[in-house]
């Protein structure tokens, strides 16, 4: 998925299409590698250019392989999480409201036809 450009011995960079992976997703992915790497980020229209610099020493081929594997997995995972979060935002809020509301007197309307007739 990614073509890494080796900038120098401790730095690589890659591009991300923001139409595919938005800024939220990108931030979350980069969060998890920010302990080992210094991250710079430049946007140009819909392409984000990410530059990663190793905090200690140089960046080896093994490091790059690990990074590629991790980032590939994380980009897909966080995209799916974004889909789920977007779609379920209202339900999550509704759940919280229902779980913690003190009284029962809001919206007792049943979703089903049959029960109204019982009393």
């Amino acid at each position, binding site marked *: 998925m990614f073509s890494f450009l080796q900038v120098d011995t401790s730095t690589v960079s890659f591009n991300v299409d923001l139409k595919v992976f938005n800024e939220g997703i990108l931030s*979350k992915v980069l969060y998890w590698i920010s302990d080992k790497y210094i991250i710079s980020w430049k946007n140009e229209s819909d392409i984000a250019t990410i530059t990663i610099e190793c905090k200690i020493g140089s960046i080896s081929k093994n490091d790059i392989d690990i990074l590629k594997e991790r980032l590939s997995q994380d980009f897909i995972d966080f995209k799916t999480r974004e889909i789920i*979060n977007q779609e379920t935002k209202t*339900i999550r809020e509704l*759940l*919280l409201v229902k779980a*913690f509301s003190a009284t029962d007197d809001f919206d007792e309307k049943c979703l089903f036809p049959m029960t109204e007739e019982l009393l």
Partner: protein
Amino acid sequence: MYHLLPFRFEPLNDHYDILVNEVGDYLIEPLGTAHQIANREINENEELFKDLTANFFISETKTPALIDNLASRYRTKKSFLDSFTSLHIFVLTLRCNQNCIYCQASSRDKNAKQSDISSTDLDLAINLMFMSPSTAITMEFQGGEPTLAFEKLKYAVEKTEILNKEFEKHITYVLCTNCINLTSLQLSFLKEHNILISTSLDGPEFLHNQNRGKTDGYQNTIKGIQNARDIIGHDRISALMTTSNESLNFSKEIIDAYLQNGFSEIFLRALNPYGLAKDNIWDDYNTCFLSFYFKTLDYILELNFKGIRFVENFTTLFLKKILTPFCIGFVDLQSPAGIINSVVVYNYDGYVYASDESRMIAENNDYSFQIGHLSDSYNDIFFSSKVGEIAQVWSNESLAGCSDCAFQAYCGADPVRNYSTQGDPYGYRPKSFFCKRNKAIIKHLLLLMDEHPEVLKVFKSWIK
């Protein structure tokens, strides 16, 4: 086509995803299942479709028909909030008669009486305790070694019992002690007032003594435990251990020592980065602790398979969160955090702290989690702007690194731990040992139960 309900996921290993719904129910499915679900690739005829629908991962309708049921279940998971602060820790003194290498309490010499809490402060603390909305509270005495200030303990218990005639709360009394100093007279008092003992036993003699910094620590503790059992009853004493660097290689020996001394349960406790324990080397320690924990758990399970009932209480806390619809009351694994919401500390110095750890860092003159003075009003303490600030960071649902975590429902938030180890109560998950450790343990337990049904059976018997 189906609708999505809130759930989190993560690869569990190279073969499986773990999917966890909003109330902590989980499914272990082949890698990539989460993506298939989100991309609407699950067919109505599949068994998986039934699993996902029945267990609130997907829904026929946008708002699920059983949303009220799901909300009830969510409420149940957070029901520890109903009682607000229910664990009230009274630090009676900082004096101590041991010299534990990992002491979190920065203990003082056993004769330094100015480190004792004053009676006036005890009165104020007890009054604050009774203002808790909870109908069931725990009054826990700590130190140093609280039995060195036994008169204060007597005073506190007797005062509380009198006041409770009016409040009618259900009060559990716990005394945290090394048992060395307990006289028969004191034990009679404990018996009379139904006070439980929580003691510390690190393992076999050589290990315990090494950790305690005293050559006769083990013998005295065992003798003390035996005396206590004779007077207050075998079941009224529980023990926990602390895993020092030295402890890490002695899984079997520690459990055997517990068995030999008549204990049928243990709490495997890692070192905390507070007090005298702070200067350890954390990276190595944490990796080693995990190995130690897995090995010890294996040994304990072996014993259970042989018919010897022995419970590991730290594991049981996670299991309750993973396997049952109920919540637990363990302050270190809650969201919103246990600090203040579940526990509060009334310190010998007259100040109120958000948690046990909060008063530890105060011994190093860091008052970040001191939330007031015993003479302040209840509202000024519990609803101060300081607490308001802490509240911004005490729910893992809204913290970076936690908000998407598959194990969010099984874990918690700990602003004090974050502050103490990383300098920031918000915390930085990629470097958090709290995160790494909990994740590793939870994954281990999930895979263990999935691959070995006989282990699940034992675990259920611990929880029941």
